[in-house]
């Protein structure tokens, strides 16, 4: 990959820092009136999710990271891997559980996810913002209680646990925001 100078730094740009692909979160130009100019940069390490702060002399360059984001459909899982497919090329890609991380608990077959590839290898999977999942285990619903605001835990078909209002019953479909892990509403079948 080409190297990229601090002059071209902007949020979202992906670069190699300490041999890991990172995305710029924030880039600030600082300079004493009579002195050396610096770029103070905040990165997210795309492998670990950790945030790092690093300062560069203005004009210094970093190698770009060959990172692309693509939309892939989740097909099925086997013992070691979760299998995804590109919906136009039908190309398939296996993702290990370690890379999938927390995303695993939201995925049901045919969900379309955003998959981050570094040098062609998957390094991260983002689930759809909203998923619809069936309740498999919760205390029986309390009919009519739509106002108290009280809640209880419910396990959904993928194994995740979410807090739901008391009226939710086993077998119902729920809309869930995967970014917060919160219940949004019931969904009629």
């Amino acid at each position, binding site marked *: 990959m080409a190297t990229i100078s601090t002059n071209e730094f902007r949020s979202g740009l992906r670069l190699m820092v300490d041999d890991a692909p990172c995305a710029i979160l924030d880039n*600030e130009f600082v300079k*004493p009136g009579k*002195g*050396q100019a610096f770029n103070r940069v905040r990165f997210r390490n795309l492998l670990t999710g950790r945030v790092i702060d690093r*300062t*560069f002399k203005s004009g210094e360059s970093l190698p770009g990271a060959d990172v692309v984001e693509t939309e892939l459909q989740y097909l099925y899982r086997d013992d070691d891997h979760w299998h995804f497919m590109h919906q136009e090329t039908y190309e398939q890609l296996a993702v290990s559980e370690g890379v999938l991380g927390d995303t695993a608990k939201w995925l049901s077959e045919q969900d379309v996810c955003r998959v981050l590839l570094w040098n062609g290898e998957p390094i991260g999977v983002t689930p759809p913002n909203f998923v619809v999942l069936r309740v498999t285990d919760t205390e029986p619903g309390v009919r009519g209680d739509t106002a108290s605001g009280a809640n209880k835990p419910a396990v959904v078909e993928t194994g995740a646990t979410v807090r739901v209002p008391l009226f939710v019953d086993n077998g119902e479909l729920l809309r869930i925001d995967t970014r917060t892990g919160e219940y949004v509403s019931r969904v009629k079948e």
Partner: protein
Amino acid sequence: MPGGRAADPEPAWRPRGDRRRWERRARLIASIREFFAARGVLEVETPVLCARGAMDPAIRSFSTTGPDGRTRWLQSSPEYAMKRLLAAGSGPIFQISRAFRAGETGPRHNPEFALLEWYRPDFDHHRLMDEVGELIVSILGCETPCRVSYVRAFRELAGVDVDSDSDASLRARVRVAGASERTAAELERDGCLDLLLTHLVEPGLATLAGVPAVFLYDYPASQAALARVERKEGVERAERFELYVDGVELANGYHELTDAVEQRARFEKEGRRRARLGLTRMEVDERLDCALAHGLPPCSGVALGLDRLVMLALGVAGIEEAIAFPDTIA
């Protein structure tokens, strides 16, 4: 958004701010003129388009071509011309002008900016600090600024002994402060100090001093630029100061160097440093050189970033909010 209407995007032609904000900026500038008029300081004007640019290797000047086909530089500060006025017997002078620095864009930098610069014959840098303090107290209504020496600030806020720590130990500090390996390896001693200044000293100054406005003074001799160097307690110090308000660098002042021979030597040294760093070659300003040879009266001078002062007075977060037409929409 359900039930609501998305806000209209700001139209591209629209300047920043509103009538009220432009009025506050205009009133602030008017009060600066009153401040100097009351003290008998003469308002002057000097060219923006100059035959010679700043020698300072840390400053990149914009250039264009003059009617004679030769390069002209957009001034990065009116210092050289104002010193020619002083040498010609102007007495105390001030100027509110445009200044330009290439490659400087950020929350506190706009490549074109407003500068308030003034010179006081017979003032040393401490007496000029008094006056800078009076001006900013009158404008910002803040407490009288405190003074903290560069050496003390670095000792207490960066854990560095500016005089005796080795280059290697400064590099180690710079690494801890977050510099990349390459930056830490390539920075010269003053570059390391600049990094520690921006990362550790500036953010802690107001707390160290106990007031929001702080003068940092008596710089390392290597950072004298156009300031006098005096021996104090056995160590050479540049009689230079910077004013910080709430961690924002606002002004830079010197007890001015008047020795033409020493000034020539410093310019030549900066010229060699520019060459070593592969920067644009800059000719020494012979007219300034001759003016200094003719005789610059003993004086102190200071340059204050006017857009930053407006930013602080308005209580806005970035310099773009203090300027109706920042570079992004100029």
